């Protein structure tokens, strides 16, 4: 029979050993993991621009295609511009902006910054907006590329951490993302309406609204709604900036 003190000693030693092993592993692997996360972010931005990058060529392609990293404030003014590896204005790269932190700042009413990427893909110019929202089990995120009219979607890419495989997780499939191409985020009068992910399919919308809708995923309704919500809440922050650009 084991004594109480043995049980306590066993438990304490076990916990210390496990903690040491896991924290050592986490510390040693952290730099490699951070690099992977940055590369995945570049891949996501490029995917929205319809450039399929692998983890080995993402950095090169990012440098070639993404010409400007722009930071915008809530009034639609440019407060940061990073170009050709140097700052023209401001001191924060759009790439280093933590969307989660900025969304929190917005929620509590503080000042916040929004990132925007300007890309030139072999002559096709586009603006890429990073997105962050909520799915069913965890965050959903993505990037959406708009053409030079700041209205027509030219590409979209989505990702998720924990959505249900085969259902909500399908948002990262090409068939879902392709639907967004050609859709418009503003109606004919220039009012922002975003793009809805429609349960039952965009075909159930009135004909005039179908340009603002895509088909949802069967069995993934909450994730699909999360994507709609994410598009709406992220894109609306940029509308002031877009209007200024188009009026010029």
């Amino acid at each position, binding site marked *: 029979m084991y004594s109480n003190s043995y049980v306590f000693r066993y438990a304490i030693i076990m916990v210390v050993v496990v903690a040491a092993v896991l924290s050592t*592993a986490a510390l040693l692997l952290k730099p490699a993991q951070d690099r992977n996360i940055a590369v995945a972010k570049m891949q996501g931005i490029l995917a929205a621009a319809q450039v399929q990058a692998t983890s080995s060529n993402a950095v090169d392609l990012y440098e070639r295609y993404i010409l400007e990293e722009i930071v915008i404030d809530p009034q639609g003014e440019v407060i940061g511009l990073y170009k050709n590896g140097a700052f023209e204005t401001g001191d924060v790269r759009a790439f280093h902006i933590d969307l989660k932190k900025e969304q929190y700042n917005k929620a509590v009413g503080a000042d916040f910054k929004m990132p925007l990427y300007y890309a030139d893909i072999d002559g096709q110019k586009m603006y890429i907006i990073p997105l962050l929202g909520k799915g069913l089990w965890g965050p959903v995120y993505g990037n959406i590329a708009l053409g030079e009219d700041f209205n027509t979607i030219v590409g979209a890419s989505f990702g998720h951490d924990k959505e249900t495989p085969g259902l909500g997780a399908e948002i990262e499939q090409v068939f879902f993302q392709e639907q967004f191409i050609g859709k418009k985020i503003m109606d004919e009068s220039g009012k922002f309406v975003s793009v809805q992910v429609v349960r039952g399919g965009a075909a159930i919308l009135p004909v005039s609204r179908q340009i603002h809708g895509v088909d949802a995923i069967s069995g993934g309704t909450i994730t699909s709604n999360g994507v709609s919500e994410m598009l709406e809440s992220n894109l609306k922050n940029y509308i002031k900036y877009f209007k200024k650009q188009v009026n010029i």
Partner: protein
Amino acid sequence: MANQVNEPLFSAKNRKLLTDPLNTSNPITVQVLGICSALAVTAKMKPAFVMTLSVIMVLAIANVVISLLRNGIPPRIRIIVQLVVIASLVILVDQVLKAYVYDVSRQLSVFVGLIITNCIIMGRLEAFAMGNKAWPSLLDGIGNAFGYGWVLIAVAFFRELLGSGTLWGYQVIPNVLYDIGYKNNGFMILPPMALIIVGAIIWIQRSRNKQLIEAH
């Protein structure tokens, strides 16, 4: 037990440890364990396959570790010790995947975490590894993981084929069939259908395997 020391590595008894869980003592269809993950990851074949691989890794290693520690583990906290071993292994696997094969880690997403909650793993640690040597424990772990895996992949095969018309992501139902009115069964990709397919597998298995037929 001197006779066990000289026992060949793949004696009849050890081979049984590998093969029994595939049929007569299958963790899913006979012991009805691990049903939760069998419902969650079988809408498509690829995740089911990856889940199978991950469970093979974790169950084999956890079984060996617990078997090596078994004489020192105080019985009153043995479940906690087992959980700590499983959870640490899973976290370790997850961290290594994130650092070196990020793409694979992204595909696995939730599955790695789900392994911790898989009752088959704790079931084998408690029922087998706590009372057996390392080598039989390793075989038992691999056997049970395969027993779990084939059911998972079989269920995923039918769900993906009938629910999405694809296998491993590739379309297999010809467009001609869709043109004449064939439709994918949307119910197949929802979890209840997994339960019904598991039920069908249990039915077929019981009708063929005499050892599983109850006396009355």
